[in-house]
């Protein structure tokens, strides 16, 4: 008995050690952000230091553009998620409750697009956007985020609708409720938790997106990903300030990610893991 308790304690300690190792790069970034530029470079980098918000003040100062990039990130993430849900809910509803022979086929091809590398469509997207004047345009970027997340949203909403017992729909039908009424009054309230977590996942993916932000925007519509990527060229000079900006970029996701972890695994494996 004591032996198994000892094993258990050792295993627990091991999992904690792994967690610390896993979290270390993020922790390192957080610690640096609460230092000044001088202490960030100090001899013997100490873990015990007086935290300061100086670097955050510098990162958020006018002229750095943090707010400009953060606004673009927030706008494109929120707008693409909302547009995605508006398009996906009726589509998923149709597939879940009015399936045709081709529903499976449609679904497979929709989901397959999530696996396609963005470089496969980069040249045409770039040319179309150039001729339409959508390069470095926040709505152009939002549209790409929408198209990027739509298959995932459709698929996830579809799977939540599928979980709703058919009896409830039939009961509403017998009561004389029309399709729209059934959807708005019966199905959507039942699927609301699922819709919310799908939206959350889409929001996180759009906020984190970097490929399209890096290729389709320059400055006007650039998001935080572009801002952070630009740090590389100035490496080491303003380390604490850059860490502070990075911390500000990941903090919303650290909070949202806590609530969306299940959906993340479910979404990224397309239901192979529920």
């Amino acid at each position: 008995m004591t032996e198994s308790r000892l094993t258990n304690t050792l295993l627990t300690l091991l999992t904690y050690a792994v967690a610390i190792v896993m979290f270390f790069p993020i922790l390192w970034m957080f610690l640096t952000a609460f230092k000044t530029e001088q202490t960030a470079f100090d001899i013997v980098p100490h873990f015990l230091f007086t935290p300061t918000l100086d670097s955050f003040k510098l990162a958020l100062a006018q002229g750095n553009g943090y707010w400009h990039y953060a606004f673009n990130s927030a706008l494109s993430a929120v707008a693409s998620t909302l547009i995605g849900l508006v398009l996906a809910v009726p589509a998923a509803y149709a597939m879940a409750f009015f399936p045709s022979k081709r529903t499976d086929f449609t679904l497979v091809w929709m989901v397959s697009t999530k696996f396609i590398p963005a470089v496969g469509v980069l040249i045409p997207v770039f040319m179309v956007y150039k001729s339409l004047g959508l390069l470095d345009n926040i709505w152009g970027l939002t549209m790409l985020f929408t198209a990027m997340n739509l298959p995932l949203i459709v698929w996830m909403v579809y799977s939540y609708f599928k979980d709703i017992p058919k009896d409830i729909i039939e009961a509403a039908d017998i009561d004389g409720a029309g399709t729209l009424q059934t959807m708005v009054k019966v199905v959507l309230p039942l699927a609301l938790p699922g819709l919310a977590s799908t939206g959350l996942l889409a929001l996180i993916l759009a906020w984190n997106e970097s490929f399209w932000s890096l290729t389709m925007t320059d400055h006007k519509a650039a998001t935080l990903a572009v801002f952070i990527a630009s740090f590389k060229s100035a490496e080491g000079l303003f380390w604490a300030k850059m860490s502070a900006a990075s911390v500000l970029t990941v903090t919303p996701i650290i909070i949202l990610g806590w609530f969306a972890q299940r959906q993340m695994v479910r979404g990224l494996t397309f239901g192979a893991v529920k």
Partner: protein
Amino acid sequence: MSHSSSKREMSARARWQAWLPKLVLAPSLALVLFFVYGFILWTSYISFSASDMLPNYTWVGTHQWSRLWGSWTWGIALHNIWVFSLLYIVSCTLLGLLLAILLDQRIRAEGLLRTIYLYPMALSFIVTGTAWQWFLNPGLGLEKTMHELGWTSFSFDWLINADMAIYTVVIAAVWQATGFVMAMFLAGLRGIDGEMIKAAQIDGAPVWKIYLRIIIPQLRPVFLSAVVVLAHLAIKSFDLIVAMTGGGPGNATTVPATFMYSYAFSRNEMGIAAASAVFMLAVIAALIVPYLYSELRGPRS
């Protein structure tokens, strides 16, 4: 009279009901099909055209393709992605499985640990990759810290060493995805029927034997999903390279995605870039299409 009009009304309504699902599905389907499959066809066409800096739709057959295969850099990109994918898939799968087994031992605060393991996947890799780049940079992070702590002979310059740089990318990528693979395996472990395990325990089988003979074989579908998901993530990897090495030093960490990007935008070789993109698409399609068919269609039919 009123009967027939109501009948006509009913059939109009029925027709409307039949069309409505198709109608509401159309925008999503059109958007996805146009943006993705339409543009893939377009990319394929460009790969057979004379496009360089600007699109030029003169048909040149497989000219761009032979230039792609003749390119020294493309050879490096293919070699890198092969090394990277292999190490990435194997390490993530093994570490993920190990972590899942660890976490399955009724560990205290399991929920918190699971979340911490998953965080690297949830955070933008442009950000965490930049943190890794600082950490592994000899002038800033680990090496400098060790020197200042007195271990002056400590050296870790893989990030700027052309022979080793690809392995730093592997380390960061494994760090990012391991927790995610762990979550997949943990869900698999929780779904295993306990009866056989109990029977084996009663027979006095040692724990490692139970895992090796009973539990791990039952996780086969999870292995398949993990490998497919990891393989496509590996082939798509772009932000990882951009954040950590930018493809350098030299071409040491060039992979197909960064190759494609630089040929399309900085080297003005749109035709070659398109050919490389089509090649990546073909590899992914060969991997994904059979998997999706079995995964999404299998259970119902």
